[in-house]
């Protein structure tokens, strides 16, 4: 029988979907959910704590205190002549944002199997909410950076910001995309092979040492001219260096390195989206 009036259906459920279809229209429809999930993360983070949101400050403050003591004073790694706390804080807040996005996104299916196994909503909402929740943390920590920045300028430190500081929004998008993209790739693989979760657990803290968080790129280049490409190869290095260059006036900034970082970020994000889209449809069966 031929259908003379092809019927119009609102939803079609098929075995396979398009790989690059991001369902952005649906994500937009669920934007309230996105906001509520971010709110949930934020509120549940400090419920039943005395200090509440102050905890967002405490962690980076203690971290840079230890970095200053150990890497700065004990090990004596040079910091381009910048105030040590400021130098470490610049690297730490960017690195934390990346690492938090990556860690949380890489376990998104496992952590939320309860919800995702019972209700449909665009799965992309979950990783997006993670990136946004962490963006709030980043904003709070960035505020801390600005406070410290002003304190050091008032103390008479010679810090000159320059026009590259205006690249900050681009840098934030890049870190978020990198964390999101890598996290989605890992999350997709871990639904079936949990081994990767172990690699992430010890790999991410180690990766920090291959990034210019506790040392400037210039020092690494001077000391290991043969191997410094490894550090440059890491796309986060360019982000941190650009950030330091823009705000603190010191750092290895060049457009080629940044362009390389942008291209690799885009590649990682697209790969992540494609893999995520492929897995999200049936992960419930394997997780």
């Amino acid at each position, binding site marked *: 029988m031929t259908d003379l009036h092809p*019927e*119009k*259906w*609102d*939803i*079609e*459920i*098929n*075995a*396979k*979907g398009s790989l690059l279809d991001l369902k952005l229209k649906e994500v937009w*429809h*669920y934007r*309230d*959910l996105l*906001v*509520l*999930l971010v*709110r*949930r993360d934020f*509120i*549940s983070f400090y*419920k*039943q704590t005395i200090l509440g949101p102050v905890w967002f400050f405490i962690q980076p403050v203690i971290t840079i205190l230890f970095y200053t003591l150990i890497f700065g004073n004990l090990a004596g790694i040079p910091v381009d002549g910048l105030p040590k706390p400021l130098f470490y804080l610049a690297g730490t807040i960017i690195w934390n944002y990346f690492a938090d996005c990556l860690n949380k996104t890489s376990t998104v299916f496992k952590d939320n199997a*309860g*919800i*995702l*196994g*019972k*209700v*449909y*909503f665009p799965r992309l909402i979950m990783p997006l909410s993670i990136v946004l929740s962490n963006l709030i943390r980043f904003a709070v920590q960035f505020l801390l950076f600005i406070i410290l920045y002003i304190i050091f300028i008032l103390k008479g430190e010679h810090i000159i910001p320059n026009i590259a500081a205006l690249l900050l929004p681009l840098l934030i998008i890049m870190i978020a995309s990198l964390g999101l993209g890598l996290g989605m790739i890992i999350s997709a693989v871990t639904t*079936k*092979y*949990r081994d990767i979760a172990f690699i992430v657990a010890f790999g991410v803290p180690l990766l920090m040492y291959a990034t210019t968080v506790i040392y400037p790129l210039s020092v690494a280049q001077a000391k290991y001219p043969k191997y410094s490409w490894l550090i440059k190869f890491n796309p986060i290095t360019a982000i941190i260096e650009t950030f330091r260059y823009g705000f603190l006036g010191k750092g290895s900034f060049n457009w080629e390195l940044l362009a390389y970082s942008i291209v690799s970020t885009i590649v990682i994000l697209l790969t992540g989206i494609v893999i995520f889209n492929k897995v999200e*449809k*049936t992960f*419930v*069966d*394997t997780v």
Partner: protein
Amino acid sequence: MSKAIKVENLSKAYQLGDFGTGTISRDLERFWARLRGKEDPFLKIGEVNDRTIKGESDVVWSLNDINFEVEQGDAVGIIGRNGAGKSTLLKILSRVTSPTTGSIKLRGRIASLLEVGTGFHPELSGRENIYLNGAILGMRKAEIKQKFDEIVSFSGVERYIDTPVKRYSSGMYVRLAFAVAAHLESEILIVDEVLAVGDAEFQKKCLGKMGQVSKSEGRTVLFVSHNMAAVKTLCNRGIVLANGQLIYENRQLEAVSFYQTNNNTRATFEHHDDVSSAPGNENIRVLKFIIRPLTGDSISISTGVSFEMIFFNQKAGINLDATFELKNSDEIPVFHNGVLISTNNDSKTGFYTVKCTIPPNLLNAGNYSFKLIFGENQRYLLFSADDFIGFEVENESKGSNSALAPGVIHPKLDFKVSYRA
């Protein structure tokens, strides 16, 4: 009337056994087959999903070539035994997972209630959870705001609305969760046995709300349940699934009776493989359950019933008890009687046999199912199984009247009649 749901050639395969071992090599083989344009070597289409028979491959077709259509405004009951594929069908319909082959087409918005309270966060207050849960189910914030008072009054937890839900009793939790779901505005509503929660009064309220949704608001409802009484009253059509296949589709009354007459095939259960794979858990394994008439070949009202169960007990040195709960097809418990297997903390590891009889002229005609409960000290649950085994009691004609008498039981009563002019 237009169609609301159209399901075509829907199949879903699951892999049995353990993931992790051998999956990489298998994935590579699959990938290689796909590269050469061949079919997946691990999917054998056409194998019937019967869990009592050991299949050839370790892929199981949880749904096998399902086709049906649902008219707009229909309330369809999906019935079938455990493992018939009901939940898989609902999961695919609610887009939680994808089919292996085939497609489903839907008209209108779809809301599914595979569970109440999905996404409730224990630290958040009732108010915050209403918004969060509503958004997870697909409502916009403005929509929830508009219905907020209605939801709260339906749930009946006004007083606790600003208290974190972790302080709620489980009943309050469920009430609040169902209230949110009941106020979803969607053209298609999918419900999985969520009504098995809450007290009787609240269950009634939920059933009433569902009836209202399908009958007066003209929405399409798909309802999965073991509660035949609820299917009969709420639905107007029924679909029977067995071993992943759609075996019957008709009006709800016919579908329920088809299911009930075809579901008494398990009057004998015997497990032949090794003990560790028998139904049960690390405490108890049930190996054999036989139900037969006391006299004659088939069970009817006057034959009485004898049943015998063999189980393997692994908890030595405790006070073990076994309880048999018999339910009729309206899910009404007929009796709930137990036996103390050991009373002096002297249970032994090994096989126990329990035999018992139900006297003649007690059970009315109809379908019955046994629920098994094993306990320790009559308090701690060791193992329980709903609908473990079912049987049918045939009706007997009394003179010219062969209609089924109403009532849970049908005892032979000793009437004395006297007459005085």
